[in-house]
């Protein structure tokens, strides 16, 4: 199966953060906030929308919309993109403790109805008391299991009952709201070390830390023992340029993290092919200065992957 390519839509990367933001006078070319007029104002979501559209236009299959503590709230980002994108899958980060189990699914039912079933859920771990989440790390997996069981149970006519430690529902069922609608496929994070009991609920396992090709093959084998239809995704920060010299200049300037996929367009494409051969199904690419890097990745990397697939 061909490698799918997603973009991680950050809302906190430094070069992107202030785009379409109102200035406090420190940058003369940025419009000052005019509280008297709400019309015709641009805001940061105009920029986020443009990054999303760039990903769609350059051939990405989807966006991962993360829940960054200093960033925008992912349900809202997802909502603003429903009618601004046509085809992209939208993988919304979900904090299980942030809503009732029913309300997570209720919001998803509208997203699926409005987007023609393009949402998936990326389940995050516990967020701690600074985010109002009192659940201890050792209880997190049980809570996730309850959430996923409840979401599956009420995604239909019901009546579905659940009396859990974290979520309850009585005579639940979303009925006509979800008839003919796909329940959002679930992505789980490898860093949360999901057990077989959780993997059976999942469609995708996201490897969210650096992984070698050798380790990848083992991870894929282990995960597929729990769930044979599981697809494997990996978070891959990207730094790619046309030739070695450009790569070196950029790397010296950016000082990329060790897990970053660094190299020329050809080298990075070859590395992705190797990962795909070892069992990777989805590459989730990321880089700061997103409007520029989305174009580089889309045109040069996805372009190479697709051209090779067409030639074959």
């Amino acid at each position, binding site marked *: 199966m061909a490698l799918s390519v997603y973009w991680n839509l950050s809302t906190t990367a430094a070069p992107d*953060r202030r785009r379409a933001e109102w200035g406090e006078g420190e940058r003369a070319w940025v419009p000052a906030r005019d509280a008297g007029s709400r019309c015709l104002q641009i805001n*940061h979501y105009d920029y986020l929308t443009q990054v999303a559209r760039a990903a769609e236009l350059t051939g990405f299959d989807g966006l991962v919309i993360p829940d960054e503590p200093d960033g925008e709230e992912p349900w809202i980002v997802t909502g603003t993109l429903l009618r601004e994108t046509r085809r992209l899958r939208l993988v919304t980060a979900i904090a299980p403790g942030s809503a*009732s189990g029913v309300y997570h699914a209720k919001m998803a039912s509208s997203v699926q109805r409005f987007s023609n079933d393009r949402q998936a859920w990326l389940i995050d771990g516990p967020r701690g008391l600074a985010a109002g989440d009192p659940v201890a790390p050792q209880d997190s997996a049980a809570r996730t299991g309850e959430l996923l069981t409840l979401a599956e149970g009420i995604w239909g006519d019901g009546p579905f009952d659940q009396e859990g430690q974290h979520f309850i529902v009585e*005579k639940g069922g979303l009925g006509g709201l979800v008839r003919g609608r796909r329940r959002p496929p679930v992505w789980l994070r490898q860093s949360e070390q999901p057990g077989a009991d959780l993997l059976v609920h999942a469609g995708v396992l996201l490897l969210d830390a650096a992984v070698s090709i050798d380790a990848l093959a083992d991870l894929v084998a282990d995960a597929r023992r729990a769930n044979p239809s599981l697809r494997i995704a990996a978070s891959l920060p990207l730094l790619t340029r046309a030739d070695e010299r450009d790569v070196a200049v950029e790397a010296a300037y950016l000082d990329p993290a060790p897990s970053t996929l660094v190299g020329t367009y050809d080298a990075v494409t070859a590395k992705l092919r190797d990962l795909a051969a070892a069992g990777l199904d989805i590459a989730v690419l990321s880089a700061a200065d997103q409007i520029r890097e989305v174009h580089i990745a889309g045109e040069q990397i996805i372009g190479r992957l697709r051209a090779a697939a067409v030639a074959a």
Partner: protein
Amino acid sequence: MSIDFYWRIPTHGCSSSIRERSSNRGDWSPLVPGNQAPGLADGAPDGTSYLDHMTEIARAAEISGFAGGLLPSFPMTDDPWVISAALARATKAFRFMIAFQPGFLDPVRAARMSASLQRATNGRVVYNIITGGGGPSQRWWGDPFDHDDRYGRTTEFLDVMKGVWKEGPYTHKGRFYEVENAALPPALAGEDLPTVYFSGSSEAALQSAARHADYYLSWLEPFAQLAQKFEQVKRRTAEIGRGIKCAIRVEVVARRTEEEAWREIELGFANVKAQSRDSFGGQRGDSVGVQRLSGLGVADARDYRDLIVSPNVWGGFSLLRPGPALGIVGSYENVAARLDELIGLGADSFILAATPHLEEAYRVGEEVLPLLRHQAVQRLEAAE
């Protein structure tokens, strides 16, 4: 003082006429003659959804001078947060009055979602805080708490949400919520808190409203009863050193003449099956608002005129569609006169509705609101 006029966005389909009870706009009902047909491209669905129709209602309300719209939230409606985020980019000045219950979201998440949505809309978020109708449907929502508990929770929810947003890092350990050094990120924290519309008729609700609401929102009730309720809310709020405004949510049928308006009601009433009349009053739950409206004799009515409560006020709207019983029916002049009367009794804001919501937004905006005697009716910022 200015009066705000909001419109309602129907979040579970709309009908092309108040005469028919069924929703024929929206994708829940099967395709029959008279239904808004799904768009097809080469024989396949073209990707439009009920969101597209809601978008057009919001735009009609915006064009017609309404400040924004209420987005109700019930088990079988689309979700107001998702609708608002999706409509943020399809509208310019329309404010989103999001109905939600504190049991749906935790307060830190609610603060982040709201602040992000304020950023996406340039500050167009308004809350309609509902504490719940109770009974079986609360557990349908996944909410285990009973009536008075829920009002205690609403108060604590709003304390924490405001604290995290405006006083962070914020620490709180209460009966329902626990947070430690919680704050919004700087880009979000600078946004304004949404204006709070608060519903609820019970003693527990009034206590909670006095503490946190900017507007106390009520369905239309018999005018004297409503005036008394508003007076009580304002007195209760003044006792704790705050001020509060009052708002009314009311459906209208406004036509060129009284006769034309009442003909809509006559035909609508005639289309109601006897069994739906008899089942009125079977509404479950522990809502005091519902109890206050019972005893109007809807089940016994055999003629629409039996349900005329006072001049231009009809008590049978709950037969024509789910929701409150009382609404205003009459000529443009008389509907405007009743709204003026309500302003005189203490109303500072209205959420109006009429079926079909798209076309009627134009009619009410163009024909009724300009007739109000009240001089300072706030039309949507015309200068923009």
